[in-house]
């Protein structure tokens, strides 16, 4: 049974020490900057929601190392099949904050054309698959994308993210099983943040670790300190390289903690011990990495503070830009249901347009929640 955490920067508990990845100082600082930008995007998203400027937000506070360390181990041509709590991986791939906030505002600039709740991104040009809300479905998609990559023989890898809650879903089983049976170039990353809304991970499974579940699918499983960006990078790189070599999938459990609420609609004080939040605040992945960077002579405190200030400014500017954009056109409602609009939909579209502003009062109805 896997109980030890693989780590580079060290944990307070039983740990398996990994060597630091061979990266340049510049590369360490790029990882740091991406983690900080993820934090600042989330802070901005939550602030916009609290101010009533967007309807909903899902922050990823505390999971920055897990996101950035893993995404950094991929090539740009590899695919990501995400769940809804990895905004940092999109930033890592070069998506601009304004593109993400356009989605949160549901405006005409949104790639998803305002059709989904906030944080349900789609970035085709970055090989970042459209995010859905159902839990676990993306795991089976990732296996399928990887099966297709294998059939095409193009040497790419598909990485999927899931939470500890998703390990209870049907598609966790089918996704890992299909990935294993077809030896697909796939990496399954479970960011175990220990809570699925209010249910603690011990209520999801009596398995000692999530990494152990890999045994049943005939693939390696590793349990990694998810708040240690260097350990996450090393372990993911191993898994991605193995997948690319044709050795099939790996399940990585990145042990972490959701420092914030499940979403802007959630209050974790109802179900989570305060002491636990304090314990994990001390393990904040950004602070931990900053200590390591300073201790190893890669940066000083002032330089790191400047990264925070610049990211704060970047997100603030992006929000201002997104907020000015109009809503999608009313008749865009009927686009993209099918490749072409069938007669029945055209009839409904014509009827809506013929209404003009007759039903405008209905459209300004307040949200009850």
């Amino acid at each position, binding site marked *: 049974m896997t109980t030890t955490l693989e780590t580079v920067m060290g944990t307070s508990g039983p740990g398996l020490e990994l060597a630091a990845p061979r990266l340049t100082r510049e590369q360490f600082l790029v990882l740091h900057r991406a983690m900080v930008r993820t934090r600042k995007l989330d802070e901005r998203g939550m602030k916009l929601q609290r101010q009533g400027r967007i309807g909903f937000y899902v922050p990823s506070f505390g999971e920055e190392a897990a996101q950035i360390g893993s995404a950094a181990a991929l090539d740009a041509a590899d695919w990501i099949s995400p769940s809804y709590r990895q905004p940092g991986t999109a930033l890592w791939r070069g998506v601009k904050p304004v593109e993400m906030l356009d989605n949160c505002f549901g405006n005409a600039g949104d790639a998803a054309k305002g059709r989904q709740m906030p944080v349900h991104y789609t970035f085709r040009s970055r090989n970042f698959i459209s995010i859905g809300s159902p839990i676990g479905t993306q795991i089976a998609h990732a296996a399928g994308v990887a099966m297709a990559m294998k059939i095409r023989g193009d040497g790419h890898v598909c990485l999927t993210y899931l939470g500890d809650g998703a390990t209870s879903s049907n598609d966790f*089983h089918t996704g890992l099983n299909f990935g294993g049976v077809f030896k697909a170039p796939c990496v399954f990353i479970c960011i175990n943040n220990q809570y699925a809304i209010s249910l603690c991970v011990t209520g999801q499974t009596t398995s000692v670790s999530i990494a152990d579940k890999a045994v049943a699918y005939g693939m390696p499983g590793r349990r990694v300190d998810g708040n240690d960006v260097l350990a996450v990078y090393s372990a993911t790189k191993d898994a991605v390289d193995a997948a690319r070599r044709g050795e099939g999938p790996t399940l990585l459990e990145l042990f972490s903690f959701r420092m914030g609420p499940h979403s802007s609609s959630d209050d974790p004080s109802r179900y989570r011990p305060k002491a636990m939040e304090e314990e994990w605040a001390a393990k904040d992945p950004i602070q931990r990495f900053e200590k390591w960077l300073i201790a190893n002579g890669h940066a000083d405190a002032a330089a790191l503070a400047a990264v925070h200030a610049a990211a704060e400014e970047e997100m603030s500017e992006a929000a201002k830009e997104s907020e000015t954009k109009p809503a999608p056109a009313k008749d865009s409602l009927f686009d993209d249901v099918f490749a072409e609009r069938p007669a029945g939909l055209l009839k409904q579209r014509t009827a809506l347009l013929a209404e003009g502003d007759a039903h405008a009062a209905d459209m300004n109805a307040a949200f009850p929640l």
Partner: protein
Amino acid sequence: MSATNGTTNMTLLQALNLALHEEMERSKDVVVLGEDVGRNGGVFRTTDGLFAKFGAERVMDTPLAESGIIGTAVGMAMYGLKPVAEIQFSDFIFPAFDQIVSEMAKMRYRSGGEFTCPVVVRTPAGGGIRGGHYHSQSPEAYFCHTPGLQVVYPATPEDAKGLLKSAIRGADPVIFFEPKRIYRTVKGDVPNDPDFTVPIGKARVARAGKDVTIVSWGAMVHTSLEAAEKAARNGVDIEVIDLRTLVPLDEECILTSVRKTGRVVIASEATRTCGFASEISAIIAEEAIDCLEAPIVRVTGYDTPFPYTLEHVYMPGPARVLDAVQRVRAF
């Protein structure tokens, strides 16, 4: 192989098999996956010969998990392949319902057109084979109720081939119901041309007539035709519409016929409440009530689970369809 001209007489099953062979020849992106579809050639033999010809990489025997079949097919399609997934019986499609309804149907819309998953889900449906609850149902209405899915239901070998080829070449996800009761019992002439297709969204007048319209699809088309032949002996001239595609629906074909006859029976072997027959009835009522000489009558299965011993009590046969014809004529 057949010449590209002319036709060959074959069963509906052979027509489907031929369509799969031709489309896999035509494009390397077409892959087949499902339970027992490879070495075994499918439990009905619909995929017979594909494994030997195209190999295990393109004809995949999957683990026994419908959600996995559709979930991975969605991933493959997003990546650019053209998966033709088989769900062995449509009664077993429900574990995949989430992947179909939440993912496959919505992917184009929810991604603003960035990602599409034009998967073809082939699945045998309908009763009459002594299959009980779990090998007999007609679940098409669940899928018609989900925007983003095309729902196709051929009734003849020619249409089976032509529609399956259109589905495989198309840009949208398709639920392709196969009337298994008539897999081997209905034969017909099928064009040899490998580029012969039947467009999705076009109904067909299976039998022209002027007195009463019967709207049906799948195996019920043949039940309706049988009823029409019997009625003809009594001087009643029935027009039978074979919908071929339920979504997108060819409303014009239905309405044109209704405007001519003024009397409509809708014949379906599915459960009555919220069945697709009800949708057609509503459309006719909204669009052509001024042409109706009698109430619209639905002939359907009962609102019970599909039975084993009493399946021919449950399923409408020509006599029950004729009763309905009598009702709309007598009004």
